[in-house]
């Protein structure tokens, strides 16, 4: 009897075990967009999908303002879990039942939707796109056709947070030169503080830290345009030198940093074991909520020696709202995203959501956030890999962060890390295109 049951059980179990993985790729592949019919009623309900459940109340308040100004229009905000959002959205946009307006990722993240013809091009439809700087519109531009598919919502910038209490205790001030910066790190280390809290187990922060410190060393915007045009590549000695800076930084990071997670690194800073945290404007909300008594400041990391570009603040445009090509109410949806490009929406966004609005001329209420905005506005540089090298696999930042961890573990030299970045990217990136 035992033999009999096993005979039947095993093939079944084998197939069952493999199926969840296979089934994960089984999504209906129905045809592309259809032209939506015009509205037949004056009452319009627009659904807006988003990956930000935590912003639901804030968005509802913002859309109340729009509804008051546009009688007959109801805006329904439907958020989904961030991690599942891409799959939900790409499936939702494929058939019926999708949103009219969708929050979409930027740069490489939005390309699959554009390529699939699931979003409307906005160039001739949305006048407020003219309000945005070219850097912002680049985040929503289709790689193949050069058209803009989303109204940018926010931008993020990253630089160094510091604990003012610890700085005061040790008589430290915000560093203005590289030597000052090194002296600050040494003083923190001598006084048993972790100079810079940063994770390497969750290694996505590594590309951020490298750009925050090393962008001036590799040449900032000039390097970006040179590498895009093919005038140089990632084997450039200046880029290798920027990777070497990460090796230089290692003794200032938490002990056994390759085992330190993102949450750990934030906890080290919150519990005042670390003096500096290199991070982004997106973390301000976390600090405010979890360490309301933490006296926080931010400073721009000074340019390292031999830099060919001035000290800068690196950032990127983070998310946009696009219109579903299958929307039943495309005109009303276009009107809504048109409004999302106005300073009125931008100001409401930064006040309610507490992020930096992508609409120029808006002022955040949080002084720290405002400082991030000012620093980025004064010397903006693109987060190199996110902005330019996330359009295909392997992405630039995944190659860089794996390489830097290998370097920290003594398994790779800075030259090898740079060479891997170049080899990986050259498989899909052709300079000058």
């Amino acid at each position, binding site marked *: 009897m*035992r*033999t009999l049951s*096993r005979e039947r*059980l*095993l*093939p079944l*179990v*084998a*197939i*069952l*075990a*493999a*199926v969840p*993985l*296979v*089934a*994960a*790729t*089984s*999504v209906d*592949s129905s*045809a592309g967009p259809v032209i939506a019919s015009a509205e037949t009623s004056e009452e319009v309900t627009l659904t807006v999908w988003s990956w930000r459940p935590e912003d639901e109340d804030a968005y509802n308040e913002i859309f109340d303002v729009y509804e008051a100004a546009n009688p007959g229009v109801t805006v329904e905000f439907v958020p989904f879990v961030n991690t599942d959002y*891409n*799959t939900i959205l*790409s*499936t939702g*946009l*494929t058939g019926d039942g999708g949103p009219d307006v969708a929050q979409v990722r930027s740069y*490489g993240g939005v*390309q*699959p939707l554009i*390529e*699939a*013809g*699931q979003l409307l091009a906005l160039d001739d439809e949305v006048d407020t796109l003219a309000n945005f700087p070219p850097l912002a519109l680049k985040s929503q531009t289709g790689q193949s056709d050069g058209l803009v598919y989303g109204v940018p919502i926010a931008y993020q910038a990253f630089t160094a947070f510091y604990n003012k209490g610890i700085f005061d205790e040790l008589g430290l001030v915000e560093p203005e030169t590289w030597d000052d910066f090194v002296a600050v790190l040494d003083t923190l280390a001598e006084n048993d503080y972790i100079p810079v809290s940063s994770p*390497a*187990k969750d*290694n996505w922060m590594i590309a951020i830290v490298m750009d925050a410190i090393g962008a001036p060393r590799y040449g900032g915007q000039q390097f970006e345009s040179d590498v895009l045009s093919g005038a140089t590549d990632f084997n450039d000695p200046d880029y290798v030198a920027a990777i070497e800076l990460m090796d230089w930084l290692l003794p200032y990071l938490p*002990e*056994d*940093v*390759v*085992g*330190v*997670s993102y949450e*750990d690194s934030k906890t*080290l800073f919150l519990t005042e074991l670390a003096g500096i945290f290199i991070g982004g404007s997106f973390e301000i909300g976390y600090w405010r909520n979890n360490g309301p008594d933490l006296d926080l400041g931010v400073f721009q990391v000074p340019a390292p020696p031999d830099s060919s570009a001035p000290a800068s603040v690196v950032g990127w445009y983070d998310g946009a709202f696009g219109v579903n090509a299958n929307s039943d109410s495309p005109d009303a949806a276009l009107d809504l995203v048109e409004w999302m490009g106005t300073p009125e929406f931008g100001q409401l966004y930064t006040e309610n959501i507490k992020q930096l609005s992508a609409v120029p001329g808006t002022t955040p209420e949080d002084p720290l956030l405002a400082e991030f905005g000012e620093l980025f506005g004064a010397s903006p540089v693109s987060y190199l890999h996110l902005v330019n090298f996330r*359009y*295909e*696999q*392997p*992405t630039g930042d995944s190659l860089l962060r*794996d390489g830097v*961890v*290998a370097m920290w*573990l003594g*398994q790779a030299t800075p030259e090898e890390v740079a060479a*891997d970045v170049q*080899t*990986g990217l050259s498989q899909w990136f052709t300079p000058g295109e």
Partner: protein
Amino acid sequence: MTVGKPSSARLTRPASGKGVGRVAPPWRILLLFLAPAFLLYTIFLIYPLAQALFFSFFEWKGTVRGAFVGFDNFSELFGRFPLNEQLPRAFIHNITFFLATMAIQVSLGLLFALLLHRPRRGRSFLRTTYVLPYMISPLIVGYVWALILNPTFGPFNSVLKDLGLDELARPWLGDPATAFPVVILVNAWFWLGFPMLLFAAGLSAIPEDFAEAARVDGASPWQVFRHVTFPLLIPVFGTVAILTFIYSFNVFGLVWALGGVDGGPVGSTDVLGLLFYRTAFTGGINAFGTASALAVVMFVAIFGVSMTARWWFRRLEGGIA
């Protein structure tokens, strides 16, 4: 020593066929009984499998199918850097995970099952205790162990330091030399109850008479185990091996919680499940194509090895009988 061969009459099914009152039911009736299972099987197993195979031959633009590209997705899987390095590395990790898990599960699982086989005080309590971790989600198990082994706040290193064993304290999950062995050990802790239960069920299915007869013939406890219990447990070994193999090739949540989605540090804990996840959900415009190809490769590997192992265990069983 002579050990009586189990009476074949007791374990053999009665002969079936015409002439003993059994008449094959009409095909319509057969179809009626087969249809529900066949439908479910087709909708949820055959169809997705066939679809994944179909998808893997096309280029994808997001969720929209593009041109037929033949085996391009497969050649990308095996040729594109760093996928061409990650795929064999993940495959080797899955194999290592399987072999190490088998070694631990079979030895400790069988030992615990044997120790808990005879009625003794606390047997139910211990059995439940060993099985308890298996009841918890692997994600939670991984998360808790990641906290315990955390190099900054974790109690494990603190205890080592308190005991004066400072030189042993290390970033267990941050050091490529220790990360994967730690994953295997945490998994052993988590999964041990499962083979133990299977062995326990196998042991209780062996009639006590056999061992008793052997003891009457003068067999020592080791001889009873070696010549009576062990051969009769071979089918259970087969089941444990094949289920462990399938589990090892689909392991995901535990490794994700311990090593992150990249299977860090430097890919030392990367497995096929994580690689599939990364390819499918962060794989760019043609993610569906490459991920479908990877799913097909994984299915062929799992199904092929499972069938071969099943055939091998049946032969082994036949040889012993």
